[in-house]
């Protein structure tokens, strides 16, 4: 490897399942210390990519180098240096919190003394110290996810892989997980994560790729992507369901960079949202509700794919 700070390099990486191409020739690099995200709807190929990086899914084509090693030949050596937080928790729910970490540490060949010391530290970090000797089964979804994160850190990994880290969690639990991941990022842990939540990508990722139908549609920092593919502000208009289509035709006459007509809303991509709203009103339209907001990655995704993230 020419550059020791490039931890993962993929060129034309492809994964096929029979006739279906889940990952269709993607290129990306992961640099040491960054938080790198794959943003895309369900079925975009994010999890397949994570599984190839996790060395549990041999690529169907292209090149993949992880920590300078070949994932097909050096799987165990690579996995020894990765932390994986899968989409499903895969915890042993019949064991205690502590036993889950013990088992996992043993998988990495860590001595019990080292595991005990790290367990104390990690449970403190994910705020589960009081539950250390409780069985996992009755823990809440957020607690289980935090335990999975703790488990993925038991080997002090060089890269932490998080596949949809907050999917299925309630908003409060999501914020706790985000807070912990943000702390890891601040400590310089290299993160690679997939998400279909644009707010998660914006909060956590230094750099991300937008993935859709197995391909990378765009790459950059959240700010760069928004600047490149959207406008500074978005005016969201909502009309009566019966007036929705008619209103959309009229709004099209208002000056804007771009307009998106969603099932329930009309989005106007503009530089100045308030001015745009005034222009809409000048056309004789009075929306039920109007909202001026800043552009988000959701808008970038809509622009790139014509679909919303949740639609998949």
């Amino acid at each position: 490897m020419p550059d020791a700070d490039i931890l993962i390099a993929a060129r034309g990486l492809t994964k096929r399942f029979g006739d279906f191409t889940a990952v269709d020739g993607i290129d990306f690099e992961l640099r040491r210390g960054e938080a790198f995200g794959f943003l895309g709807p369900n079925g975009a190929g994010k999890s397949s990519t994570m599984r190839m990086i996790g060395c549990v899914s041999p690529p169907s084509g292209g090149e993949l180098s992880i920590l300078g090693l070949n994932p097909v030949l050096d799987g165990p050596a690579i996995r020894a240096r990765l932390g994986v937080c899968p989409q499903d928790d895969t915890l042993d729910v019949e064991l205690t919190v502590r036993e889950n970490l013990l088992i996992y540490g043993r998988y990495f060949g860590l001595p019990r003394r080292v595991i005990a010391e790290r367990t104390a530290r990690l449970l403190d970090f994910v705020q589960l110290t009081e539950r250390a000797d409780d069985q996992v089964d009755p823990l809440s979804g957020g607690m289980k996810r935090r335990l999975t994160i703790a488990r993925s850190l038991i080997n002090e990994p060089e890269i932490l892989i998080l596949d949809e880290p907050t999917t299925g969690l309630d908003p409060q639990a999501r914020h706790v997980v985000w807070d912990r991941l943000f702390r890891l990022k601040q400590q310089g842990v290299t993160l690679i994560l997939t998400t279909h939540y644009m707010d998660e990508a914006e909060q956590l990722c230094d750099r991300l790729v937008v993935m859709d139908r197995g391909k990378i549609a765009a790459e950059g920092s959240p700010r760069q992507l928004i600047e490149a593919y959207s406008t500074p502000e978005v005016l969201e208009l909502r009309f009566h369901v019966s007036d929705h289509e008619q209103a959309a035709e009229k709004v099209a006459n208002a000056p804007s960079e771009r307009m998106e007509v969603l099932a329930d809303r009309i989005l106007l991509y503009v530089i100045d949202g308030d001015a745009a709203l005034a222009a809409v009103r000048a056309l004789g339209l009075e929306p039920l509700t109007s909202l001026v907001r800043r552009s988000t990655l959701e808008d970038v995704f809509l622009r790139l794919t014509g679909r919303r993230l949740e639609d998949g």
Partner: protein
Amino acid sequence: MTAPAAPAGVPAGRPADAPAGSKAPASSEASPAVAGRWAMAMRAFQFWLVNYRRTWRGTMYTSVLSPVLYLGAMGLGLGSLVDKHHSASLGGVSYLAFLAPGLLAAAGMQTAMNESTYPVLASVKWLKTYQAAAATPLRPADLFRGHVLFTTMRLFMNSLIFLVIMAAFGAVRSAWVVAAVPVVVLTGLAFAAPIDAYAVTREKDQGFAVLFRFGMIPMFLFSGTFFPITQLPAWIRPLAYITPLWHGVALCRELSLGTAGLWSSLGHLGYLAAITLIGLAAGVRTYQRRLYV
């Protein structure tokens, strides 16, 4: 095994709650995380051992009660009737002495089938603990061997308990019976290895019911456990000869009665070992195919 050094280059001013270092440890090749195949299998074995710590008491009741009930009801109860007729095909021993080593081997089959069906499907499908382990240095083959090791331990424990109870019932005729313990282990592995290999490919547990109903129960009844297979019609006997259980039953019985011959013993062992080895080879493939997709 030595503790891996704290990752080099972790900033000195890291916060106290810092759980992980992102900075690379210098050597990856010398990582203690990757070891030889049996050391790796032992790590997977420990998973089962930690789980067994919470369930062992329950299994002990079965391991003790089952031989007591069977030897009492069939060996002594039914045996008192059988022995009145001085059946020559039992080889001149009491029904209890005839039956006990057969039950010993059959119990090995039962233990093996219990361990290699639902626990494997649970690991790969319901709990996904296999997928969790596959994200570590362990390979699918290590997980397979780890489970085979655990089954071996369970077989060893159960056959030892059975043997002690059998001796207490006065059902042993020869000190060679001690050699029946490894024979039961091998008999069990001849079931566990191929069934592990099959179970890991499953999405549902329906196949197991078929396996128990049309595999285990007929074998239990017709492989010489309760009566010599010479009592079976001649045309059906070859079917009994190809079951691994018959080889286990026959050899355990010969050892317990002190009638084991060298060549026939080697024949039985060879047959059981061959099936075990085929199962071991199959499991390495099926585990790999299931966990690396």
